[in-house]
């Protein structure tokens, strides 16, 4: 597998004033393949931002290794031109316009005004490009940060909570942007705690808890791992439905107005046919699959370790 991010046994501990240590990342292993959207999930304090800072060379790992496009933090300058990033809230000069802020950044890599205008247009800020950033809403500032990350036309985008502060329309825009960038063959590595967004956007995810990876893989696999999949059936006469399905030898039980059927989604036709043959018609039929939120809460214990980040 061609990986753009490799993390092996990464550990980062911060020393506190009184000598004790806070472990932010504790033996993390991670492999992010090239192309597509990779969701990096975890509760506050799980070590997501620290991992990103290690990858970018902003903090030094206490142990283990991490590589971005094959380069360890000490050599990350060799590949930084191919990487766009937002780490936590993007810092911009509030009294400068968006254009001026991006021009200042672009000047470091000799990126001209044309590209600045392109990315501002891409994130929907073209009309406010010459306004001072201090007049922007939180969502607009977030979009400006994304524009800054896109400025280098990067093959890898590292976005730390990009949907922070965005309204629903802004969240949808960012989701579509990430999906589009992922479909273009870029790798979008996005840390988030907005699980529904990640579920709709990401191809693969990794879930962190207390500095360790607790699950990783394609979204569908993570959702089904450890969860019996089945079907949820809604109809008007639940007791009659249970009786008919039982007579047909199909495992079924009532659950909160539904019938939970112990057959895989691929066998849905058997259920509909069995019920329809006996004059019972479904009002709803869907796969009984855990959502990412449920899986996330189960894997992480639902605990936030905020403050350890």
């Amino acid at each position: 597998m061609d990986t753009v991010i490799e993390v092996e046994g990464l550990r980062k501990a911060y020393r506190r004033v009184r000598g004790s240590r806070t472990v932010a990342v504790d033996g993390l292993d991670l492999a992010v393949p090239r192309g597509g959207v990779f969701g990096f999930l975890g509760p506050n304090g799980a070590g997501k931002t620290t991992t990103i800072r290690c990858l970018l060379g902003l903090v030094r790992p206490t142990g283990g290794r991490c590589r971005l496009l094959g380069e360890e933090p000490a050599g990350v300058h060799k590949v930084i031109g191919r990487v766009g990033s937002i780490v936590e809230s993007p810092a911009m000069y509030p009294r400068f316009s968006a254009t001026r802020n991006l021009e200042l950044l672009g000047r470091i890599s000799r990126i001209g005004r044309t590209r600045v205008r392109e990315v501002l247009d891409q994130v929907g800020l073209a009309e406010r490009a010459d306004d001072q950033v201090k007049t922007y809403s939180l969502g607009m500032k977030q979009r400006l940060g994304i524009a800054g990350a896109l400025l280098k036309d990067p093959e890898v985008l590292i976005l730390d909570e990009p949907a922070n502060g965005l309204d629903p329309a802004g969240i949808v825009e960012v989701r579509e942007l990430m999906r589009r960038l992922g479909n273009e063959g870029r790798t979008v590595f996005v840390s988030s705690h907005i699980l529904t967004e990640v579920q709709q956007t990401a191809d693969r995810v990794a879930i962190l808890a207390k500095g360790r990876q607790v699950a990783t893989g394609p979204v569908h696999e993570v959702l089904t791992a450890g969860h019996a999949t089945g079907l949820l059936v809604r109809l008007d006469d639940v007791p009659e439905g249970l009786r008919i399905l039982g007579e047909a030898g199909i495992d079924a039980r009532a659950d909160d107005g539904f019938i939970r059927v112990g057959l895989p989604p691929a066998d849905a036709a058997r259920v509909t046919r069995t019920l329809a043959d006996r004059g019972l018609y479904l009002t709803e039929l869907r796969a009984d699959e855990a959502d990412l939120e449920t899986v996330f809460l189960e894997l992480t214990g639902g605990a936030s370790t905020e403050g350890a980040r």
Partner: protein
Amino acid sequence: MSGLLASEFRRFRSRRLVKVLVALEVLVIVATGVIVFLTQEYALVGLPDVLMGTSLVLVSVGWILGASAIGADWHAGHVTTILSWEPRRGRVLIAKIAAALTSVFVVSLVIQALLAIALAVAAAGAGSTTGADAAWLAESAGVALRVAALSTIFAGFGFGLASAGRNTAVALGVGFGYLVIVENLVRGLRPQWTPGLLTDNAGLFVVDSPIDFPLLGRSTIGAGLYLAALGAALLLAATALFRTRDVH
């Protein structure tokens, strides 16, 4: 590196604090010129003393600008943003130092030049230009260059402290506390340590009169080199810290 330097120069001159302080200085110069023109017969031959008199203000402004050049970036989180574009920290800090110190030197020279022009106009109109010969010009230029150099050195002190403390206020507080409290205590309690004091060496460097600073035991150039060496050491230490510490 040139892109980084260009970016840092533009960043420095775009900052509001820089604009406000320079505007204030220009305003004071204009007001001084007008007042001198209206109220007295100014003798231009005294210009070197006037330029020496600007040193306290220009050194203070240099210290503030040097400190805020990095302190404000730490405060606002821009250091993280810049390092995600250029992770070689040494280069980033050197570019910032170069932009801040060069800018402070140029600002100090320009401010003194504007003041000299304002006073020359006032003297030509309602005072005296007698004695303003080549020797006077050389002396005035020498004072202006030394004051600008001193402002630059103190900008380096401010930058170094703000970089280590990751805050402008740290540099200003430490600087004020050291210069006003520590140096005065040392001067009173340990006069034999006077050769190491910043203020005495700065005074000698600007005034260019070793006889007025007998305890220092060094020349004007020696005082300048001593201060420059201290500034360089502080900036080297700040760079070493910047290269090794985590950035949050």
